[in-house]
């Protein structure tokens, strides 16, 4: 009886899911990978011949994949909730004795959410990029990489085992490297690409070790096999796997302590930033945690670590976002912060998984909208990104202003836009966790919401309002339709996505079988939501007083120590340098010294000793037969003497 009473109050973990074979349209799920892969192949292998029409292929492939995704989604809706998880095998990926890894795809409620987000928002970004990259001679190569990015991300979310996920994971890392460093003739871009790649590798070590641990313990890497075996594993092993997966997620999702690459990743063309921040890449970490829900359900310690990482990052990113004058970097700080919310929610277990995904989907819309808006401004302002040189753009770029503004209202959580619906449940769930940790996490999320209101208002005011501060050399006007339409669609999504997902528990009912069901919420207005809204209003007031009423100096003022620290990414790079790079360099120097003096010294002196003694010994080979005879005689006598001595 007690169980049923509790079930209404306590979050429920997902029941073990049976997976069925895909039929009908879903049987061709390989097309989801094939479309963008074919696009990448045509554009990258086709070379300059495809220059004139390449971008059409680049746009068509994600659109086709999106159309297929919608068809598969419609078919899924036709099944009863417990029968929606479908899988199919593409081919045998690894076939070694008892170790079998089929490259299987899994279409279930969670992966279809990601498929629709990746292909849908991804397509819009591709369309935008047609206009944005129109003057770039390498536009074809750009679209090839973008399609590759989508293909890798789709493999990541569609794979039905951790190895396929890992392959997609690495593909995403490669594609992001290629795209961040797309303008590789710029030193900063090349360095940023390398930085992103290396920071991601650190996370990948965690993920690969986690997968190896799974294989060592359970002998399988498929989701079903691992999740079936996890309950019988020891608590230490499960926690270790959870923490290793968290390390992987930290790298890909730019969470503290592996956050440093995300801000530098702004060196890539703006559509890339939009793709990385909204549709692909940084959402992969959240996907990994939510997908591994059956593992994290069993280890509260690892879950708490996830939540703490999320809470720390959401404050970390928000503080950085407040100080950046580069519009893209301010938005990048905001992404870190929002992904922090998702990680926090994912760390709350079944109480938060659904809200993590809801916020992720809504974030996909408004963050893509914000980045495309920033891209459109950058495009019109001769690649200028310093907000101190913007100002008053609302009059000259009205469409960008409206779309950016709607996404802005969505991200700070003004009802009834998306952010309000998706962020508040996370704060609420954090407080509902109870205990000191729940109170701390919830407070962090609340403060984060306030800071979000501040820095986004700052971006808004510095960019679109006040006096114009740009030179006479730039003549900004509205971007062409190919760029504005995706922004308009994303703005509509930013407005409605959150409400559509959360009201009537739509996403919850849809995802429930995979992620578990959080406790029932009563109404949309909770006290935490009201406090968060009040904080946002106060933050808006402060930001307006600082940036709306006063004139903004073109050169940045010195600022308080906090501002200085935030401008330097809260010393993330300095910490990495001091904690990892310098000791690493000392270690290599020490190793080189030890190698030169120790190992080489030992080997070299041994060789010298052998050489020297043989040089002396060879003088015995005099060529005089009689001296040989003498040594033979002496030897014989000694031998006989020795034999006599031991009486043999």
């Amino acid at each position, binding site marked *: 009886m007690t169980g049923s009473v509790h079930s209404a109050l306590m979050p429920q973990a997902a029941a073990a899911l049976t997976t069925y074979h895909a039929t009908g349209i879903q049987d061709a799920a390989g097309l989801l990978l094939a479309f963008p892969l074919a696009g990448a192949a045509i554009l990258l292998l086709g070379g300059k011949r495809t220059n004139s029409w390449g971008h059409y292929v680049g746009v068509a492939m994600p659109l086709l994949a999106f159309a297929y995704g919608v068809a598969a989604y419609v078919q899924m809706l036709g099944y009863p909730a417990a029968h929606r998880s479908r899988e199919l095998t593409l081919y045998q990926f690894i076939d070694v004795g008892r170790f079998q890894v089929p490259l299987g795809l899994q279409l279930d409620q969670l992966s279809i959410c990601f498929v629709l987000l990746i292909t849908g928002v991804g397509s819009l970004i591709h369309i935008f990029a047609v206009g944005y990259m129109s003057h770039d001679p390498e536009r074809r190569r750009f679209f090839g990489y973008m399609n590759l990015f989508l293909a890798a991300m789709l493999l990541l979310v569609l794979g039905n085992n951790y190895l396929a996920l890992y392959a997609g994971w690495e593909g995403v890392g490669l594609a992001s490297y290629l795209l961040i460093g797309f303008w590789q003739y710029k030193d900063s871009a090349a360095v940023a690409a390398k930085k992103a790649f290396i920071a991601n590798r650190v996370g990948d070590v965690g993920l690969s070790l986690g997968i190896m641990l799974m294989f060592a313990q359970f002998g399988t890497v498929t989701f079903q096999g691992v999740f079936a075996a996890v309950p019988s594993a020891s608590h230490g092993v499960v926690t270790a796997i959870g923490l290793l997966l968290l390390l992987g997620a930290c790298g890909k999702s730019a969470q503290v302590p592996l956050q440093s690459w995300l801000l530098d990743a702004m060196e890539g063309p703006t559509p890339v930033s939009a793709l990385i921040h909204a549709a692909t890449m940084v959402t992969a970490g959240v996907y990994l945690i939510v997908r591994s829900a059956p593992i994290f359900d069993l280890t509260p310690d690892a879950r708490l670590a996830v939540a703490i990482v999320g809470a720390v990052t959401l404050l970390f990113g928000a503080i950085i976002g407040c100080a950046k004058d580069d519009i893209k970097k301010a938005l990048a700080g905001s992404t870190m912060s929002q992904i922090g919310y998702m990680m926090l929610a994912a760390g709350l277990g079944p109480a938060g998984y659904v809200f993590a995904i809801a916020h992720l989907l809504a974030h996909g819309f408004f963050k893509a909208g914000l980045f495309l808006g920033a891209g459109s401004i950058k495009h019109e302002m001769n690649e200028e990104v310093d907000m101190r040189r913007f100002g008053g753009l609302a009059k000259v770029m009205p469409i960008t202003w409206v779309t950016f503004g709607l996404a802005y209202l969505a991200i700070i959580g003004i009802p009834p836009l998306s952010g309000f619906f998706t962020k508040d449940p996370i704060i609420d769930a954090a407080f509902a966790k109870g205990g000191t940790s729940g109170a701390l996490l919830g407070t962090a999320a609340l403060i984060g919401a306030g800071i979000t209101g501040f820095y986004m208002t700052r971006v808004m005011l510095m960019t679109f309002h006040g006096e114009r501060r740009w030179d006479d050399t730039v003549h900004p006007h509205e971007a062409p339709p190919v760029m504005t339409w995706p922004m308009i669609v994303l703005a509509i999504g930013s407005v409605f996505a959150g409400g559509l997902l959360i009201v009537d528990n739509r996403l919850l009912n849809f995802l429930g079988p995979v992620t578990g069901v959080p406790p029932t919420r009563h109404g949309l207005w909770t006290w935490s939501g009201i406090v968060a809204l009040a904080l946002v209003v106060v933050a808006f007031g402060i930001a307006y007083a600082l940036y709306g009423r006063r004139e903004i100096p073109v050169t940045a003022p010195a600022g308080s120590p906090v501002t200085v620290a935030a401008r330097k990414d809260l010393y993330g790079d300095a910490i990495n340098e001091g904690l990892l790079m310098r000791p690493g360099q000392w270690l290599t120097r020490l190793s080189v010294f030890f190698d030169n003096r120790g190992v080489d010294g030992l080997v070299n002196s041994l060789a010298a000793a052998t050489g020297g003694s043989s040089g002396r010994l*060879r*003088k015995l*080979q*005099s*060529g*005089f*037969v*009689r001296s040989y005879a003498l040594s033979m*005689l002496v030897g014989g006598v000694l031998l006989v003497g020795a034999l006599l001595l031991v009486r043999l």
Partner: protein
Amino acid sequence: MVSPAHFIALSVILFVIGAVGVLVRRNAIVVFMCVELMLNAANLAFVAFARMHNGLDGQLIAFFVMVVAAAEVVVGLAILTSIFRARRSASVDDANLMKY
């Protein structure tokens, strides 16, 4: 009465004469003869012990030694003649090209 000790003493004397000859003489022919002397000293000891123990083993070994000595002389003298032809000298000290 000639005891085995006498034979052994003679054998030792012959062996030492041979060994000293090998070490001090330069002429290859003489060195050869000294080697033969040592071999025969060994033979004498074998045969003496064989008689002392009333066995045939030692005598058998003596035959083997003779065969080996004969073979050695054949090969050795052939080498010696060719060296003499090339260098016009039978001194073992002159044939010292193979050295460090």
